[in-house]
């Protein structure tokens, strides 16, 4: 025991602790301010990312096989349901095409190159999830070589799920929208009520108990009701317009009773990710 408390050991321990704290603060500030981590970190991440395929690829394929079996069992039920939807889908599709082409034409006449809603999708696969209680983070298998840049929005099967927070050459890290640290990029969204009036705001919180997103500080006279739809509004320059976020689950006033506060229920459990789409906003 005496040896443990000798001066030299304490000095080394304290030195190591200080170095580690320094590294932590440097990497946190890199994460907040720089578009990419330093070369050596990116290189290490690429190597580890490739090494992780040895486990992640077989694991993902087993998962995929399991889901295929599951799908097979559900096929009949789903087929019945889908049949009813098919007819309306064709009609909607045709109308969609007509609207799209009209939209293009109008844009050309107005000489607008790209609107708020245009984007290039980059399809990526989820490789691993960060085993951590407080970091809701994923690693995806596309990086800067595929055109992924920091702060791009990431879509799951049913809507917005997160943002890119770190880009390496061949993989990148995605943080879910449920992570709402002050320094993170915030999503600008709009809620639209049944009359078609909209309210703009930003997602600035997450209620862990109910799993709902919070949009606070809304100063408006427009009445938003439960079940009104919420989507991104394309302001702020990074997120394109019209990405579905969720439905309004609760409307309250904030702590001071002056501004409205919306709770948004996301359409699907954000935990079930296989393939995601990174959104590259064309500008």
């Amino acid at each position: 025991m005496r040896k443990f408390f000798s001066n030299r050991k304490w000095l080394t321990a304290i030195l190591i602790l200080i170095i580690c704290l320094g590294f932590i603060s440097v990497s946190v500030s890199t994460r907040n301010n720089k578009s990419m981590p330093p070369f050596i970190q990116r290189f290490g991440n690429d190597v580890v990312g490739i090494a992780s395929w040895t486990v992640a690829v077989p694991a993902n394929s087993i998962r995929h096989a399991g889901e295929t079996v599951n799908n097979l069992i559900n096929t009949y039920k789903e087929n019945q349901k889908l049949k009813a939807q098919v007819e309306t889908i064709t009609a909607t599709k045709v109308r969609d095409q007509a609207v799209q082409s009209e939209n293009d034409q109008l844009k050309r006449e107005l000489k607008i190159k790209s609107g708020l809603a245009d984007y290039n999708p980059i399809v990526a696969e989820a490789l691993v999830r960060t085993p951590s209680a407080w970091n809701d983070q994923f690693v995806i298998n596309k990086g800067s070589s595929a055109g992924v840049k920091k702060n791009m929005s990431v879509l799951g099967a049913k809507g917005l799920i997160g943002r890119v927070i770190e880009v390496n050459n061949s993989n990148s890290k995605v943080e879910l929208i449920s992570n709402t640290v002050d320094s993170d990029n915030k999503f600008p969204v709009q809620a639209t009520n049944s009359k078609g009036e909209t309210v703009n705001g930003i997602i600035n919180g997450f209620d862990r108990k109910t799993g709902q997103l919070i949009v606070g500080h809304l100063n408006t006279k427009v009445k938003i009701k439960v079940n009104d739809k919420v989507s991104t509004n394309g302001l702020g320059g990074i997120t394109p317009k019209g990405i579905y976020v969720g439905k309004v689950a609760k409307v309250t006033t904030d702590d001071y009773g002056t501004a409205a506060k919306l709770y948004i229920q996301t359409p699907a459990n954000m935990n079930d990710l296989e393939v995601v789409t990174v959104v590259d906003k064309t500008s």
Partner: protein
Amino acid sequence: MREHQPIRYVFIIGLFISLFLDGSISLIFSHLLYGKYILVPSITFAWLFFGMYFINRTNEHVEIWAAIAGLLFDLFYTGILGVYVIVFPIAIIIGRKLYRFLPMNVVTGVFSFAFNIALINVLAYGLNRLMNATNMAAGYFLMHAVIPTVLFNSVLFLILYVPIGVLFDRIE
């Protein structure tokens, strides 16, 4: 002269596999593990702990491997360097001290493992909170993450105790 020790290679390869297994299991079972109660698998640390616990005859420096595993963990999973690189070795050093004081059997093993898992989670959370990399409330973290995680990993430990003990004994 260092003689040829197969246990060394098994330990190192197993360490890398368990490191990636943590991430893969977290991804595949994320709807079960990251629900209302957060159960974080810590197979990497379990492997390090088993290495410290069972490998006696070889002079394997588990602390150094703990630091290396921690560095890769920081690099690849969290992106914040300097957290697990120090937390993993601290836990192994404390685990070794407990191991010297306590008699060696399953009960003391699982207790010191559970203590170490709690220590890792609390220390890593503390460092993240200190640097403002998370805004999860401490009370919520304790009730919904630490306690379930410790219980979950203790069960994993009990399941893996006999097979890994036999594996290390056979190879040595």
